[in-house]
């Protein structure tokens, strides 16, 4: 019986139209963009420190892990474009070019680097926790490497001030988010890939 089934499986038509897969990715990109937007509205207070955790960057990390380089980048670019057009999608419902080029703009552009590097590194070769972890750490380093100097320039801060305002308070949160992202990818990613696969051979 099981042999029968497997031969049936290999006989399955694999002539999926590209458009069907494209539609699926279009829908997934929209989902992750929506999640990043919602992440900006959801904040979880930390037991230590005054800065609550905002989940937008967590979802940017997850987007990279799930959608990979190309579609992940599309998703974050869509997010930034919507904000640039004046839709209230940035943290706490702000929007506009003013925010994008304001003091925190570096972090927003940094999301592009974050998702791109996570997507690029994580989707190279076989999935593994270590690879995902490395991807997330490098991605976040790039995020702050843009965000902090940008903050310093726009606000005319010194280095000490820029680090105190733009890096130190967020570090605990970032560590927590990386941990969560790895945990999520371990449980949900295999099934997600499976769905994509079955959608593309169905």
């Amino acid at each position: 019986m099981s042999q029968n089934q497997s031969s049936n499986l290999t006989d399955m038509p694999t002539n999926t139209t590209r458009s069907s897969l494209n539609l699926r990715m279009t829908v997934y990109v929209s989902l992750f963009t929506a999640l990043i937007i919602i992440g900006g509205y959801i904040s979880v207070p930390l037991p230590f420190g005054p800065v609550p955790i905002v989940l937008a960057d967590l979802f940017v990390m997850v987007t990279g892990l799930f959608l990979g380089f190309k579609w992940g980048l599309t998703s974050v670019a869509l997010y930034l474009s919507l904000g640039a057009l004046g839709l209230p999608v940035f943290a706490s419902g702000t929007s506009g070019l003013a925010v994008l080029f304001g003091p925190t703009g570096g972090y927003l552009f940094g999301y592009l680097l974050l998702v791109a590097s996570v997507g690029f590194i994580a989707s190279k070769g076989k999935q593994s926790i270590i690879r995902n972890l490395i991807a997330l750490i490098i991605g976040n380093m790039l995020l702050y490497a843009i965000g902090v100097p940008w903050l310093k320039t726009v606000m005319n801060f010194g280095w000490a001030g820029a680090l105190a305002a733009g890096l130190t308070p967020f570090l605990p949160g970032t560590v927590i988010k990386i941990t969560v992202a790895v945990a999520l990818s371990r449980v949900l990613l295999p099934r997600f890939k499976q769905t994509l696969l079955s959608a593309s051979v169905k």
Partner: protein
Amino acid sequence: MTFFHYIHRDTVLHRMDGRFKLLCMLLLSLSASFASQLQHYLVLLFVVTLALLIAKLPFKALLKDLKFFGILILIVFVVNAFNIPGDPIPNFPITSISLQGVITGLRFAARLTIIIIVCAVLTGTTPLMTLRNVIEWYLRPLPFVPEVRIATMINLTFMLIPLIFDNFAEMMKAQKARCVELRKNPIKRINFIVFPLLNQTLRRVDEIAYAMEARCYSEVRTRAVFKSNKIDWLLLAICLSVFLFVIL
């Protein structure tokens, strides 16, 4: 929660062709970034305030946005006023503030204010669907840009947000009922939110893809029709002359 603060009125700006409106707003935002002299700022402030009045947007609705920006503008002003070296202001008790600093601060603040008002007018007078169609129209001539796909993504994103939010609110209630607040570990707390959220929405989105396929989703589809008239051209001409005035 309103994600898109479109406010329905019957005004010139609401009736304006979306393509022209977006272009005008971009010209004004750019002008604000290039403005260097006092008269530039005055003209720009005059134009955008006029637009705000013509659009008959309720100030109350804008206030929420402005609260955040008010703080931002204040910070920008103060930081600049203190940090830029220069001559002290005559007859002013705080000597660490320089005249040049105050002027730079004011300039930054004015620039931000103008851009914020421009954005408020654009979003307040243009329904999301129009904006989506306008973007599609502008992207059309660009090579290698799948404009319909991008427009669909914008559409889907805004359709998904309220769905996910409802989902999220339900989940939070269910978790509160089981005393999630007692959990101290932030990793666990976040996981309890994100895991079910992602799990459920991924399934749901799969259904959405099937439903779209069932309705023959195609990227070759009916295009929106735009109509422009003399008023649109006139408004564009005004914005263009403001832009030229600023950069020349």
